[in-house]
């Protein structure tokens, strides 16, 4: 690792730590930015590095939310009674119950989601290309519809979690750091993973699955493991979101297929598919764009977002990283032999 890189990483880390104190008014937005980075990075694990474009990763986000909520509540009360008394008042949690519940709930969300990924992946990984995308989208939509008809966990009304005990601003900073911690962990994990033999194997699957199979890579096993790792982190992010949002309902917040479910894909495409930094850059750009349109073009924000998706996909498909790689190859350590290129031209 070069000196410049260490400085870069240190600067980003410093910004991460001081950001919520410098911009206290944007605490929630900053937390959402980290959420976007997490889901974009995890989407890129399968979409960019393995070539399996899932449109259903939002399933793990929603499931993570519900598992975290159900586990936390289930440790203290009966979940069915709690949800049927919705707004009726049995919501007292002691500090200790809240924090242990949160820890166990978020962890359970991650584990449950990776198990789900293995099961769903086993059924859907035979589908290739667009069929996989549509199939996973179907899983996410179906799950949302089923959960919104399931009264035990609140049905279409959703479910309400206890509020963060203590000061409201303190709570914002707390959730910001939970997201940031997860985000940094995901980033470092991906950085390590893509350098290993495992990373090379999933890249081989992306480039030519039949050939990879013939070379002795057990493709299904690799695909399942990759997706379940991605699902683990998305589930954790969902669990944290559940506590941050306090109240959530199935169709618009948990299984928000056309919001976050499609945003994560756009983030990755905007930043550059199949690169380590692409999802991070893309998520940051996209989040800024989204907040600006939401604030200044209210009513037209969805039109603007749809247009952004279309323009990104159609005219700018390599993303920022792809563009930089093309115009500034020396930044990525690609040496161009000036003499040779002059001779040929």
């Amino acid at each position: 690792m070069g000196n410049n890189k260490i400085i870069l990483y240190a600067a980003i880390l410093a910004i991460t730590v001081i950001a919520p104190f410098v911009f206290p008014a944007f605490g929630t937005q900053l937390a959402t930015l980290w959420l976007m980075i997490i889901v974009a990075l995890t989407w890129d694990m399968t979409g960019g590095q393995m070539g399996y474009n899932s449109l259903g990763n939002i399933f793990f986000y929603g499931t993570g939310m519900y598992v975290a909520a159900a586990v936390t509540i289930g440790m203290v009360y009966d979940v069915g009674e709690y949800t049927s008394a919705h707004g009726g008042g049995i919501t007292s949690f002691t500090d200790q119950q809240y924090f242990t519940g949160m820890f166990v709930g978020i962890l359970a969300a991650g584990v449950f989601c990776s198990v789900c990924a293995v099961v769903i992946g086993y059924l859907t990984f035979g589908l290739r290309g667009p069929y996989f995308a549509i199939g996973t989208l179907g899983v996410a939509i179906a799950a949302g519809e089923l959960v919104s008809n399931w009264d035990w966990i609140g049905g279409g009304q959703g479910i309400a979690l206890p509020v963060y005990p203590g000061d409201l601003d303190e709570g914002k900073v707390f959730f910001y750091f939970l997201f940031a911690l997860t985000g940094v962990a995901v980033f470092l994990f991906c950085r390590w993973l893509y350098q290993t033999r495992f990373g090379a194997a999933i890249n081989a699957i992306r480039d030519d699955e039949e050939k990879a199979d013939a070379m002795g890579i057990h493709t299904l096993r690799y695909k399942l493991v990759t997706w379940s790792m991605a699902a683990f982190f998305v589930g954790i992010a969902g669990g944290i979101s559940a506590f941050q949002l306090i109240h959530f309902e199935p169709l618009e917040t948990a299984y928000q297929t056309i919001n976050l479910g499609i945003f994560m894909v756009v983030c990755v495409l905007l930043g550059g598919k199949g690169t380590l930094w692409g999802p991070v850059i893309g998520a940051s750009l996209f989040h800024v764009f989204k907040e600006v349109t939401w604030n200044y073009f209210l009513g037209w924000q969805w039109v603007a977002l749809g247009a952004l998706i279309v323009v990104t996909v159609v005219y700018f498909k390599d993303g920022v990283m792809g563009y930089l790689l093309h115009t500034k190859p020396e930044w990525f350590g690609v040496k161009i032999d000036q003499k040779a290129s002059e001779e040929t031209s």
Partner: protein
Amino acid sequence: MDQILGNIGLLFEFPIVNFKIVIDGIMIGALFALAAYGLALVWGVMNVKNLAQGDFVIAGGYVSWWLVQHGFPALLGVPAAFIVMWGIGWVVYKLVISRVIERDLFTSLLATFGLAIMMAQILNLLFGSDTQSVDLGYETLYFADGLIDIPIAKLIGVIMAAILAAGVIIFMKSSRMGQAIRATAQDARAARVLGIDTEKVYAFTFSLNAAICGAAGAIIVMVWVIQPFYGITHSIRAFVIVTAAGLGNLPGVIAAGLGIGALEQYGAHIFGIGYQQAIAVMLLLLVLLIRLIQQLRVRQVLK
């Protein structure tokens, strides 16, 4: 659970109810089949999977609804929607689709998904988020002691769908452009070598698809309801039908469309109307799984 069992019991107690559900399903399914045929056309000719299919349907419905609000006769809405959506389809083709044809399939899928979000939201801004329908004012026919009711409006809708389908089939079979489209679907490169302007064929095919969807939507607004965000469900239904029937298999598309319509009505009867969207999606997963299992058999032979 008891309610579900009760609903199933009802089907056996009054077998005539089955008949009613099937008739309802077939009437709606005919319209699903129209949209699915458009999807199969685009998919087969230019290898683009159009996720905005359902939004074309809804947009066509709103064209018809808008005309009725302004005092035009409702039946005029179908040709009007056909023409307007033809124009919109052409614009969409020129701006977006023409640039994703050569790319991989996920690109077209995502581009049309973005398009779908945009269209749904524009419709929402223009017409509001209420469900709308057009009442033709015809009476309803009753059979079997009132257990079976067939609104004449629905009958007209089915007949119009059949006329439209027949027109498109005759056009594809006998006209010069239809032949060019079929030739391009078989082998675009060979068609180009033989002097067919494939770019024009693509533009024509996509516009035709949008127009068919628009006309289907104009019929749907007469026999059912539309709402700006119902588009995605229609898209999914079209995908279910095409995936189940396969490309270029017109009788299959019609049969699958009618079948999906009937299955959805059964599902809505047994599980309640709240599950209608979930049922459409579950059918998609089911069809994909069945296809997958069929392919697994082929792979085992290879081993």
